[in-house]
């Protein structure tokens, strides 16, 4: 039996045994998500176990719906087009999942002591979002996204669960549909409401959530593939970035631009 047949049999058995089809739940979020993520294999997309990216599974996001909203939002921020892959193809949603599951998501190294004032001053503070590259001597080396201004008790993981669900609520309010079912322009409209701070959120301005979403999407596109995004260094290839390299001492004084095939951190460390 080939692997492909094996998978389809399993899927058929699963559907039958669980009774989900018979119960009319197909199209509901649970099975919709599961079908999409686990059971739908396109023709020619079957991979052997060693080719599959076994690191791509959710360990932070429990609800597949949350993850789908995230994926759709990041794809609007960095869409697939003629220049190359978008956020989803680059693995950016999994980059988020891994980041939020770790110390970044739990704010392990941030100052999280009370009191967290909820007054006009803390709200105003969150709107002082100058671009990072205009904020200090070393910051021209940083992502040119606004610095999120943090005055909330929620850690980043909690903030994302809250924010993503709020995206869906706003979609329902405004368009009567789930975010993932909206047309691209409608999705943009919802995201712009967050960016402009027009969405009420408790304990945090929606702009802060949006700034994190923006910052982490860019990071996921361009961070080393070890973090789960920038898949196959496709982000780097788009902008002719060569990755970590030993030396440019022989090229630094060149007049012309030099294109190099990207190398990853794994290449650099000589991982085997």
């Amino acid at each position, binding site marked *: 039996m080939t692997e492909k047949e094996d998978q389809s049999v399993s899927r058929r058995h699963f559907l039958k045994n669980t009774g989900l089809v018979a119960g009319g739940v197909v199209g509901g979020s649970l099975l919709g998500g599961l079908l999409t993520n686990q059971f739908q294999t396109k023709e020619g997309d079957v991979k052997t176990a060693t080719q599959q990216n076994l690191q791509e599974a959710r360990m932070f996001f429990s609800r597949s719906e949350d993850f789908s909203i995230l994926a759709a939002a990041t794809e609007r921020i960095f869409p697939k087009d003629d220049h190359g892959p978008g956020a989803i193809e680059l693995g950016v949603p999994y980059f988020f999942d891994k980041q939020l599951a770790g110390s970044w998501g739990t704010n392990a190294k941030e100052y999280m*002591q009370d009191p967290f004032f909820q007054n006009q001053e803390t709200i105003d*503070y969150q709107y*002082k979002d100058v671009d990072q590259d205009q904020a200090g*001597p*070393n910051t*021209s*080396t*940083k992502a040119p996204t606004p610095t999120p201004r943090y005055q909330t008790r929620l850690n980043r993981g909690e903030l994302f669960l809250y924010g993503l669900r709020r995206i869906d609520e706003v979609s329902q309010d405004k368009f009567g549909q789930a975010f993932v079912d909206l047309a691209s322009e409608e999705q943009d409209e919802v995201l712009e409401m967050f960016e402009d701070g027009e969405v009420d959120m408790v304990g945090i301005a929606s702009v802060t959530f949006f700034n994190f979403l923006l910052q982490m999407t860019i990071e996921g596109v361009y961070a080393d593939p070890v973090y789960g995004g920038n898949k196959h260094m496709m982000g780097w290839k788009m902008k002719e970035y060569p990755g970590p390299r030993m030396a440019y001492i022989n090229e*630094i004084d060149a007049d012309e631009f030099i294109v190099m095939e990207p190398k990853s951190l794994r290449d650099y460390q000589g991982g085997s």
Partner: protein
Amino acid sequence: MVTTLDKVDVVIVGTGWAGGIISAELAKAGRKVVALERGEMKNTSDYTGVKDELRFTNRFEMMQNLSFETITSRNNLDEVALPVRTRDEMMAGTDLGGGSVHWAGSSYRYWPYDFEIYSQTVDRYGKEKIPDGMMIQDWGITYDDFEKYYDRFEKTAGLSGEPDPLGAKRSSDYPTPPLKESEPIRLFKDATKNLGYHPYQMAAANLSEKYENPDGQVINQCQYCAFCTYYGCDFGAKSDALVTVIPTALEHDNFELRTESYVRRVLYKNGKATGVQYVDTRTGQAYEQPADVVVLAAFTFSNNRLLMMSEIGEPYNPQTRAGVIGRNFHGQFNMSFLGARGFFDKKKFNLYMGAGALGGTMSDFASDNFDHSDLGFINGGAIELRQYGDGAIASNRVPKGTPRWGKEFKKNSIHYANRVLNIWYTSAIMPWWHNYLDLDPTYTDTFNDPLLRITFKYTDQDRNIAKFGIEKCQEIMEEMGADIVETDDMPEEFDHIYQGGHYAGGVIMGNDAGTSALNNYLPMWDVDNVFVVGASALPHFPGHHPTPTVGALAYRAAEGIEKYLENGGQLVKSEQIN
């Protein structure tokens, strides 16, 4: 239960450039020295093979863990200060070597004018040039007397550079030649020459060739690999405390290094310090380390806070303008690096290559090198073009009017990834009566000690100097031939982002015990066996990056500590100036 340890000659708090230099000097002199570092033990292997932009630049691997201590920040005296909660908003180095390990390496000396800023401003422009509330003062030592300490530091670090054509007198050349010129630097130098200015290659601690320093420590040759600012060097090619003064100190048995040692108090009795109290952060065990001399050589924030918590020296009171601890806080903020950005449609640059201090610079508008008679500010700054080497996350700059996300952002960010150059004016920051440090009334650290509170806002001096610099940068960027030239805007107010690591003052040096905390060897006027070393001693922030001055101050202080240990007593007599 506090465990009391055996007394030593000198206990040093902090192991960055300042603490490292003093450790090395006193260890060489045979003194019994203990250095305490709050962070972890590190060596160059910690920074080898880890060129990872996300981890170091965006997740601040080498910066202070804020979960147990941060600062609070406000603009005005009547506001409630909020804690600066994330490392996106605040960074200070930690671990062995401190901030020196992640520094860029850009190396300037300050100007003779800076050392005598009050007298020279009054001489040239009259007293009325200095607005009420601008607290500038002479530093208590002249450039000429201080020059030999710059020379010492430059030789220890092996700095690579060429003389500034407009620079002050030097007793010797840089130990190693300048770094190579990249295409953006050539463009900058050609353009500034065309405009009649005097560009030169920025002096760098990323060394142009392998170098052995006078202590026998070897620093390797920079590879222009771009993983420099925010990183430890992959090759031991960036001068920092880890590859120079700390190994020198460790060669001596009379020197002992203790990491994970978080100092909470300077112990003080009958007008003298008797040692420090610290906690081993691995066990929570508290220790008292008695010493004849206490050296605070931590970051500006910690030096100030430790004195305030130990109730040593008179805290500054902004209402009366009396008191000295916390006075004259300044640094480089979100207005200190404003200038012009150029987008080049017809040219791509190798911006993924670089080094922390690879750059062109000029001093035509630095210090008092130009006439300020008709200008609404004093002092100046360098105009720099830097090629740090951009990571792929950083290289996403797009022309104004481009949305911050979506299809058009993607298109422009990819198109301009290697086509953007930036020049900026590193404007000086003057001290003001309302910009100061004290202890926060609400927020505490993990041991329930109050956090340091910063009160800082901009003035017309700041707005005017920034505007002046932006116009000069724009003129140069246009001459460089960029297709789109954009200028920065002066921010309305300080934005509470402490990302640059250059924060200074609060425990300043001077001639007069009424307006300064330290004399020019850096012991406190009030307590002759407490030396406070670092950028915290700077009375104002000159228009250049501070590190060589911090290093030179440490050499000066080391000499003072030796004198004190030999003869005791106060090294300098206070003058009543004003």
